[in-house]
């Protein structure tokens, strides 16, 4: 069974333990990468390149049934003894930094199944956004042998776009009543969907929503994503949904490559941006941070423009 991991293994030992399936080492590693510190970076470096677990993003408005659907999908893969990883992301409060992470409530069916690993992540609003920590967390689950890796996010803002970059397949989940959402998201959710799910299709309005989605996706010149009706609470439509996802994993190799390329680019950029920014703001013993405070005062009292302040701050750099 799980042997207690030593308190401070080297990054190499830690990486080896994760690859060997040590769940505690994985949990601890997720904490390290989530924290985006030097220890996490060392672990990722020691881990080297990871496999190619299929990463499936599940996004949609609050209450659409994303977590319930994730749980039902997990059950479908577990029936074939696939080990499934889940990352459930919820927003942190920008004011207190706190977060209420409640997605596990809908996934209790897998609570003591060794073949399912569920981790709740708070978005934390760190520089570089949500995606950075999620890419890394997904890599760890991948390295530990979980395939697929499911990533649930609430689709209300920029998050869903980022998640579609982190995922090989993006499932957008809607429910009757999210019709107004469809209206308001012309440039958002529909465009990132590889598969559209109308969940809670036991409720009134499901067929109308399907029809609305159908006409919305037909207007685009891109390939229309399939629309699947589900009742996540009863497992209805899940076989079809699973088959679609597995089909994408197996068949669309070319597209996956393009996706992964885009993901790698976004990821490298985010990491470079973050390091650059850290280095910039922490430079010269906090002098830069102080310059920011002064510049901010000037902009706030109207004596300088923001553009001037930026030019002055960047003056030292060949920008």
């Amino acid at each position: 069974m799980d042997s207690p991991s030593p308190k401070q293994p080297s990054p190499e030992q830690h990486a080896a333990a994760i690859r060997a399936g040590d769940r505690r080492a994985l949990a601890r590693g997720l904490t390290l990468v989530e924290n985006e510190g030097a220890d996490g970076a060392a672990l990722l470096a020691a881990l080297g390149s990871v496999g190619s677990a299929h990463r499936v993003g599940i996004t949609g408005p609050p209450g659409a049934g994303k977590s319930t659907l994730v749980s039902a999908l997990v059950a479908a893969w577990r029936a074939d003894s696939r080990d499934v990883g889940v990352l459930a992301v919820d927003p942190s409060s920008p004011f207190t930094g706190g977060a209420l992470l409640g997605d596990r409530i809908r996934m209790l069916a897998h609570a003591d199944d060794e073949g399912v690993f569920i981790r709740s992540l708070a978005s934390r609003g760190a520089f570089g956004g949500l995606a950075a920590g999620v890419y890394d967390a997904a890599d760890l689950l991948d390295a530990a042998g979980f395939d697929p890796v499911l990533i649930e996010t609430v689709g209300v803002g920029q998050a869903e776009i980022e998640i579609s970059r982190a995922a090989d397949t993006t499932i957008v989940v809607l429910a009757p009543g999210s019709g107004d959402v469809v209206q308001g998201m012309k440039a958002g959710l529909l465009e990132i969907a590889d598969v559209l799910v109308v969940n809670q299709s036991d409720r009134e309005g499901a067929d109308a929503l399907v029809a609305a989605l159908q006409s919305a996706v037909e207007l685009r010149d891109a390939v229309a994503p399939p629309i699947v009706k589900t009742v996540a609470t009863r497992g209805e439509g899940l076989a079809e949904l699973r088959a679609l996802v597995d089909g994408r994993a197996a068949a669309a190799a070319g597209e996956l490559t393009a996706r992964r390329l885009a993901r790698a680019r976004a990821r490298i950029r985010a990491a470079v941006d973050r390091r650059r920014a850290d280095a910039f703001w922490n430079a010269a013993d906090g002098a830069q941070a102080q310059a920011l405070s002064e510049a901010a005062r000037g902009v706030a009292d109207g004596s300088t423009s923001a553009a001037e302040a930026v030019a002055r701050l960047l003056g030292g750099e060949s920008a």
Partner: protein
Amino acid sequence: MNALDQRPIRILVAKAGLDGHDRGAKVVAAALRDAGFEVIYTGLRQTPEMIVAAALQEDVDAIGLSLHSGAHMTLFPRVLDLLKAAGADQVLLTGGGIIPDADMAKLGEMGVGRLFGPGTPLSDLVAYIRTEVAARREVGSA
């Protein structure tokens, strides 16, 4: 200072036992979130095995158990044993419910953290968890 020391406190909040509602646990969960904690809320009717399995996956600093079923003398020790067996005894186990003082003392001797009766100000709970987790993180990284 180590970057890990500054990450938000992660705590799993659950309602153990077979009885009814989880209003109290939800209020506690919301208060802890407002205090800046990352609260993993797993809801009602959690067995010790489910609680510990989730706590390990989530790598939490603490577990806050709410229970009103009178089964505290079996549930708390069982959770503690499972944590020990997994080598995770640095995780703080705290909670609340209607628990006689004598039982609180006994549980404390076993290694359970402070337990809070109904009506305790939530700020006491928050302050206690902050202090206790800070001390345990210190030990863990020593």
